């Protein structure tokens, strides 16, 4: 489900160097972070990223904040019997040796009230806090998402 935009971002992120954080026995890296460009007056935006835990213990993301928004929460989109709902994820667990992807239609970071209009080419800062006191700072570019690109093979 990671779009072509997401793949392009991987290249971009190599330049930005993905945030990597070590603590105790879990090592978490965060890449492919991007924010979906939204209509001009949108009060909520979504961000996506991939957490990789190369450590030996489970890593837990407890909260995310951003100076570019009034608040942020991890949400899970659930579509059951055709009914879409969003459930807040209070603790995001990344098991040892595994990846957890936030991607369109699944888990996403819901960002509230942007402090300025965000357009493709801008970037925002996300501060990720984990259980045990680790934190990471990630720069996420704003990207105009296109469903058409997702079906290009």
């Amino acid at each position: 489900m990671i779009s072509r935009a997401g793949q392009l971002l991987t290249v971009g992120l190599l330049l930005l160097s993905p945030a990597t954080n070590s603590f105790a026995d879990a090592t978490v890296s965060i890449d492919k972070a991007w924010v979906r460009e939204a209509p001009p007056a949108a009060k909520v935006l979504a961000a996506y990223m991939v957490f990789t835990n190369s450590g030996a213990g489970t890593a837990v993301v407890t909260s995310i904040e951003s100076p570019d928004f009034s608040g942020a929460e991890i949400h899970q989109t659930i579509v059951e019997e055709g009914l879409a709902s969003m459930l807040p994820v209070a603790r995001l667990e990344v098991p040892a040796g595994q990846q957890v992807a936030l991607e369109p239609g699944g888990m996403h970071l819901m960002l509230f009230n942007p402090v300025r209009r965000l357009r493709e080419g801008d970037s925002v800062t996300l501060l990720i806090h984990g259980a045990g006191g680790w934190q990471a700072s990630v720069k996420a570019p704003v990207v105009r998402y296109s469903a058409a690109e997702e079906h290009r093979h």
Partner: protein
Amino acid sequence: MKPGQIVTGIIIAALAITAGIWSARAVLRGQAEPDDLSATRFPVAREIQPFELIDHHQAPFNKESLQGRWSFLFFGYTSCPDVCPTTLSVLNSVAQRVADVDDEVRFAMVTIDPARDTPERLAEFVTYFNGDFIGVTGSDADLQQLTRQLGILYNRVEAEPGAGTQGGGYLMNHTAGVFLFDPDGRYHAVFTPPLSAEKIADDFHKMQAAFR
């Protein structure tokens, strides 16, 4: 009968029932979807009862508005960061894929959050995805005239302390399908998630060709 034979008997009976259900389903599917569609298409398109809403130009959007053109309707809201933008991106891709058809094809998002989604806000939201898309709103009661007959569900989820909906907002749970109306203004088919622009466009081409 030995216990072993009883168990074997139960397994055979279960297999027979399963096979029966599968073949019955195949027959039913064959009747409802003669064209091998991923959409659910009604054998006979369903008549719609009158409803009165307005579009983002403040013009009436009612039963008569559905006549004379194909209409794709999606029910969502603008304070929705993931599902609704993704669906509108998919519909924009569908719009480009069905542009070859002679019939007029229209795409509209009907808000299920009329308290916050004014025509102005809807206009800005839907036209971001495609300049020809239409936003539709109305009072709660007027909205239900349409949603009830389509079996569309939605409800408001209030903020809970420490979880969800920061910033004084609330979330909406809502039916995420895309509803297709034919040029007779009848409810013709529904596409249920996960939505694929390619499949919706392929299905639409088949249904459009088979129409009349």
